[in-house]
Each structure stands twice: as structure tokens, then as C-alpha cells.
């Protein structure tokens, strides 16, 4: 069952990811990204990260991507012009990428050849309570710092998006 679910959601994720890249219209890319996020949320659930899964839905799919869609609509961004691959992108980027991915995959398979399979419910400490505990004890300082970061981000966004920016 777990394997099946993994397969389904992994397939969704990959397909949506590819779609993100190949679609010419930003909004299609945005929606496919939302699809990836949804699939990932499901995978998080399989890995026992229920809180992160929910956060993924709420923060990423529910807020960030909505913001993207909103901006795309606002700017009414049309489809891209014919996708011109620059020489660098063609002759350097793609091969490098393949190399990169190949190495990653190889290393992953080599470093952990047969580790115990992932079964749902084997990892119990992904609950909101657990995360909250370590967030407010061990990781208190980073947590507070992120709050400051967000504050700064808000200020920056406001400053940038004001009318009289020129």
C-alpha cells in the first residue's frame, strides 16, 4: 500500500514538475507547482510528517502560491515568446544537469543501498506537539530570528510595492 501511494504521488509530483518546466504560460506552471506541493504533502504524510504536510498545504499551496497566481493575474502575464535556449544553457546547462542528477542518484543508491523501507506510522514524532516542543526549546533563537526576518520582509514588500516607487 505504502509503495503504491508513494508511486502515485511521486508520479504526480514528477509529472507536475515536468509540466512546470515545459508549460509556456506562467499560470499553468504555477498550478503545476501547486500540484507538486500537494503531492509532496501527501508524501510527507507517508513519512509521518503530518504537521509539515499541513503546513505545506497552508503556507505553500494556500498562501505563497496564491500570491503567485494573484501576481500573475495582476500583471496579466502572457505566454512567453518562443523559448530561445541560449548557447550556454544548451551546451553547458543541460549536460551539467544530467551529470548532476546522475551523480546524486548514484550517490544516494551507493550510500544507502538497502535501508529499512518506509512504512506509514513508523515515525510518530512529526506531530504538532513534538515540533512545537523542539521549536520552542532547542530552536527558540532561530524561531525568533525568523519572526524578525518576516517582519523585515513585510516592510520590504510594503516599501517596494508602494505606488510612488519609481
Amino acid at each position, binding site marked *: 500500500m505504502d509503495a503504491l501511494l508513494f508511486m502515485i504521488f511521486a508520479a504526480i509530483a514528477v509529472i507536475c514538475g515536468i509540466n512546470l518546466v515545459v508549460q509556456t504560460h506562467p499560470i499553468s506552471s504555477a*498550478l503545476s507547482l501547486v500540484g507538486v506541493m500537494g503531492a509532496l*504533502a501527501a508524501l510527507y504524510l507517508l513519512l509521518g510528517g503530518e504537521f509539515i504536510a499541513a503546513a505545506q498545504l497552508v503556507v505553500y*499551496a494556500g498562501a505563497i502560491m496564491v500570491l503567485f*497566481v494573484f501576481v500573475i493575474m495582476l500583471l496579466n502575464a502572457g505566454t512567453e515568446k518562443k523559448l530561445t535556449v541560449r548557447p550556454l544553457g544548451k551546451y553547458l546547462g543541460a549536460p551539467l544537469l544530467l551529470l548532476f542528477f546522475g551523480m546524486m542518484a548514484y550517490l544516494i543508491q551507493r550510500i544507502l543501498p538497502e535501508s529499512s523501507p518506509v512504512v506509514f506510522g513508523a515515525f510518530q514524532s512529526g506531530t504538532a506537539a513534538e515540533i512545537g516542543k523542539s521549536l520552542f526549546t532547542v530552536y527558540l533563537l532561530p524561531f525568533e530570528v525568523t519572526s524578525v526576518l518576516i517582519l523585515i520582509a513585510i516592510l520590504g514588500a510594503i516599501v517596494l510595492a508602494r505606488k510612488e516607487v519609481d
Partner: protein
Amino acid sequence: MNFYLLSLIKTAIVVAIFMHVLAYLQWIERKVIAHVQLRVGPRRVGPHGLLQPLADVIKLVTKEDILPSHVNKVFYFMAPFIAVTFALISISIIPFGPEITVGGVRTNMGLTDLNIGVLFILGISGLGVYGVALAGWASNNKYALMGGLRSSAQMISYELPMALALAAPLLILNTLSLREIANGQAGFYLGFIPRWSIFQMPFPQIFSFILFLIAGFAETNRVPFDLPEAENELVAGFHVEYASMKFASFFMAEYANMVTVSCIATLLFLGGWHPIFPEKYGSGLIPVVIFAASALLCFSHAANPARPFDKITLPVFGVLFLGAAGLFLVPPVQFILLPLFWFCAKVLIILFVFIWVRATLPRFRYDQLMRFAWTFMFPVALVNLFITALLVAVYP
């Protein structure tokens, strides 16, 4: 019994009931608004227009499905489905009652129960935006686009106070699973004040309840926050280009969202399926009384009918009501029906408030809407959350 089979059965039941509820919710709304406005409302189709929803459905299905030439096909088709899907998903984790045993099968009323129910609801409701936004954008029509933009902005803005308002009772109840939340509100103070969140110590969540309701209005694009479909500015907003079943599914989505919000409010603030006063004071007889009273009403009306066929219909209803009242007295089903009754009663009351408000209040202006969200709702929700946290910390 097999888990999958059981789930299938439950799903079937819930979906069947839920669809009718949605359909009839619209009838109720029309009736109520009509009476608020001193009209009679639909009454041609069937007795008291009871078959009106059926007629509407037939109409909508059989209508021509116009496909404008200038729309973005994919998203134009996708939008209503997204909307209705995400509207219906959330119902799947809502418990309608306690655990029960039917024919040796022990199950809980409700499709499933997540440890992170509340977060899940939030996430899904967040996703609901896409339906509206996409519809607005795909229609390739400036009114629709305005509607879409408005709704996405509005939903993002009101999601914050909503989440904050939800967080406050969670601090007291100390769980995210809706079932445990409901159970956490069982029992009574001094034997008669229910332990519902809106009464619960150390800090009654009445404020967060109100905040949540307001945010809920906004999230479901209901009056006074129905700017995405402001008829008199945007024609019909995001679904101006939609017809027949697609249009209907937007409608369904809206009502489904209403129901969901009402259910969440009931579960988080009004103590779910727990009665308003203890059994030992006879709270179990309330439904019986209500149904019996309505039956009597029907009979009395049937005695001197306003219309000829009332002589037939009203007694039928009377009998039905009596049957219902009797049903609540039969022990083997009582323990199923009582919680269900309480739950539905609360949900219906909140739904009535929805309709009532729609019948009374005018629409906000867009800037007012935003200012209200950010300068009133948000700070108040924060303060409320802060006070709750403080009190919970002081009196654990």
C-alpha cells in the same frame, strides 16, 4: 467488517445526505429571505415549493452549456471542479457524532478523523481560492478577473484572522483532532453550564467565535463580503461567464463551504454534538417536543387550510413529524439520533445566521473590506489569542 467497505458505505451515506442538504439549503435560503422580505418565496413546485431544488437541478442540467470563444479552455473547465472538490473534501474529516456501534460494528460518525484536522481544514479552505481565482482569470473577462482578484486577495487576508481565531480554543482544548476537540467540550460547569469553548474557562472563546464567523463569511464569499460576485458592480463576478452545471457547481461549492464553516464553528465553539443541558434534566426530550409541536402545528393548519391541497399535504407532514418525534423515543436509535440532532441543530442555527445576515446587511466596499480585515480583525484576533495564551499559561 472490512475497513474499505465500511468507509465506502459511510461515504455513500454522507454524500447522499450532504448533496440533498446542499440542494435544500438553497430552498431554505430562498424561503427565509422571502419571509424576511415579507414574501412567500417558492411555492409553485410541489407543496411549499419543496420540489423547487429538484426543478432547479433539472433546469441547470438541461440548460445549454455555453462555452465562450475567448476563454482559456483548460482552466475554464478546471475551475468549477477545483472549487467544488475542495469544498467537499473538508466534509470528509468532520465528525457528526460520537463513536457508535451498529450491528456489532464499532465506528465513529464521520468519514475519518485526522490528528491535524483543524490544520487540514485550513489548508483545504486555502486551496479553495484557486477555483474562484482561476474561474475569474480563465473567463478572460474583466469583470470576472476583478472578481477573481478580489476573492484571492480577500481569502488570503481573511485566512489570517480565521487561523488566529481557531488557534485560541485549540490552546484550551490542546488538540488538533476535531473529534477530540468535540469530546474536550463534554460536561458541564456547576452541572448546567455546558463546557463549550464559548463558555470554557479560563477564557471563554466568545470573541474568537464571533471573529471566526465573520472570517467565515468572508471565506465563503457570503454577504456582506460577497465582493467577488457583486452583482451590481461586477455583473456576477467570477462566474459571469459560466452557465448550467458549471455555474451550479460554483453554487454548490459556496453552500458546501457554508456548511463546512458551520460545522467547524459547531465543533470548535459550540461543543459539537453535546447537548445544551444535561440528559438528567431531560435534554433528550427536546427533539421530541420540537417535532411534536411542529406536527401539531401542521394539523392545526390542516384544520382550516389556506389552500385546497393543504388538506392533503399538511397532515402528511404532521404524520412525518410525529414519526420523527416517535423515533427519538426508541432507545436503540436514540443514542444515534440525539447527538446527530444536536449537531445538526447547531449547524442549522449557524446556517440560519448566514442567511439572516444576507437578508439584512448591505455589501462592504472593497477598501472597507480590506481595512476591516487588517486593522480590526487581525489585531483583535491577535489580542484575543494573546490573552487566551496568557490565561492558559497562568491557570493550566
